[in-house]
């Protein structure tokens, strides 16, 4: 087993930082400290190069055309799919490229949901869900009459497993749950939840937007039916994401969008569908960003997902340690860094998080303030917003300290009221 010192020596954060051009930037006269990674990650040179190389050298449409460029573009796009699939322990046929997590969840809601859910059926969600895993089901509920049942979380910010067990007694058709909360940082026990849900005959969808970028994920090991995630939170460009679904489900499901590429034969009244996963990728896909997604996965694998998770846990532990010492600050979510993924939501007792974010921005420190698209969490905590610092493979312990020190500027502006 490696000692933590050895790990630190092997994890060369400065070498990683050198790959990210934007980290050289100054903001408001200070070196950028980017702590808004849960919103979107920065991009390494290798990913930017993959985009440029595609447009300068290969650009052509995929899956049609017999010329060299079309063949090369198809090969690059499909090889990126294979890389993304391997990254989460899946077969390439089981991975549909989408715009993002939101589109992946909508694909399941409309293609699987409309075909399999009917009035009186139940869908179990949690109060930790991002709006992207709530609103699509509300739309489906309006069309089908399905009932949405929410599992709450405990005051410590962990899923209430007793309430989940009770919810499963209702024999839901689907359990749809976030892997890592983008507000609380909580890592949910998705394997256990999947096992329990399957035992009552429910399908399981997991929103992995905040998990896949930060820790090793193996969909086979989890055993889930659907798994959705976004490229842009894991070094890839915006506009590309993925849905994993079990092969049999993808084969059974009707298409989501209709158009070119996704067909086998078109007649006046009827058409037949292409094989999976192409059946779910109507029209010209996002070829360039898909290829760059492959480059992003290559980069993450080279660093190693276990090493990244360990690095982020150190950053999270340091942030929690420093913030816990501050009497005027409230921290949300589990206190143990090992039960979280790399982010910390917090508030000053008497300063609104927008004011905190504004004052930190003057010091070149980028954090997020708001409801983080999780109004159900805010309501449960009786808040309208929190501040959130979220970390990634290129952040340093020094940056965490700079960030916590800069909170003194908030106290300066807001004076004695800050506590």
């Amino acid at each position, binding site marked *: 087993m490696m000692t933590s010192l050895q790990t630190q020596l092997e994890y060369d954060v400065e070498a990683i930082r050198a790959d990210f051009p934007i980290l050289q930037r100054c903001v408001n006269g200070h070196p950028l400290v980017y702590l808004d990674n849960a919103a979107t990650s920065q991009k390494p040179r290798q990913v930017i190069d993959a985009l440029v190389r595609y447009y300068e050298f290969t650009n052509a449409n995929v899956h049609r055309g017999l010329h060299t460029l079309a063949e090369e573009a198809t090969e690059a796009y499909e090889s990126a799919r294979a890389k993304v699939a391997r990254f989460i322990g899946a077969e390439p046929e089981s991975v549909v490229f989408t715009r993002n997590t939101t589109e992946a969840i909508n694909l399941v809601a409309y293609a699987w949901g409309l075909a399999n859910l009917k009035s009186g059926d139940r869908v179990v969600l949690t109060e930790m869900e991002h709006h992207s895993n709530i609103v699509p089901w509300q739309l489906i509920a309006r069309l089908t009459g399905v009932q949405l049942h929410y599992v709450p979380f405990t005051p410590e910010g962990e899923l209430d497993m007793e309430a989940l067990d009770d919810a499963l007694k209702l024999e839901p058709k689907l359990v749809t749950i976030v892997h890592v909360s983008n507000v609380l940082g909580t890592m949910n026990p998705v394997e256990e939840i999947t096992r329990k849900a399957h035992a009552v005959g429910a399908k399981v969808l997991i929103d992995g937007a905040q998990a896949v970028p930060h820790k090793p994920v193996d969909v086979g090991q989890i055993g889930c039916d659907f798994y959705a995630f976004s490229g842009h939170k894991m070094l890839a460009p915006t506009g590309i994401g993925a849905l994993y679904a079990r092969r049999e489900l993808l084969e059974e499901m009707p298409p989501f969008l209709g158009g070119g590429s996704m067909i086998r034969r078109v007649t006046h009244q009827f058409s037949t569908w292409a094989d999976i996963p192409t059946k779910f990728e109507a029209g010209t896909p996002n070829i360039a960003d898909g290829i760059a997604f492959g480059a992003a996965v290559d980069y993450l694998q080279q660093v190693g997902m276990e090493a990244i998770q360990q690095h982020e846990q150190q950053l999270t532990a340091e942030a929690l340690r420093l913030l816990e010492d501050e009497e005027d600050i409230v921290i949300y979510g589990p206190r143990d860094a090992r039960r979280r993924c790399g982010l910390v939501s917090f508030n000053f007792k008497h300063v609104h998080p927008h004011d905190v974010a504004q004052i930190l921005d*003057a010091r070149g420190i980028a954090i997020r303030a*708001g409801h983080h698209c999780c109004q159900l969490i805010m309501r449960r905590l009786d808040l309208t917003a929190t501040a959130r610092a979220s970390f990634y493979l290129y952040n340093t312990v020094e940056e965490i300290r700079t960030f916590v020190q800069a909170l003194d500027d908030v106290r300066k502006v807001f004076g004695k009221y800050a506590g």
Partner: protein
Amino acid sequence: MLDDELYREIILEHYHHPRYKGALPDANLTAEGMNPLCGDELTLYLKTDGDRIVEARFEGRGCSISQASASMLTEAIRGLTLQEAKVLQERVKAMLTGAPHEPFDEEDDLSALEGVKNYPVRIKCALLAWTTLEEILSK
């Protein structure tokens, strides 16, 4: 420090000591405002006697800029007629959005909001109370 222009003393003072905060049970005009991007909420209560605003209060949760702006609004519109309130509302909105307007005297608390126009993401915070008032006045 970069934020001096935004966090003027008078804004912080209104934020910490809002002038007329709380529900107004006998209000005859109310409206709710919300900023869906950031979750800020505001309810504005007016009581009128004929055409004149005799009482104005607000309830809400939000950042220093949105709350201070609401506090200033309740103070500024008391005693005005609805037409005068409309003129004031348009004048503040013009100031916050950088449109031509009759400037506020430096002695007037509302002049402290002028700095907000240089912080595009915060303009909507300062505007929240005034767009809520606009909704009441257009009813």
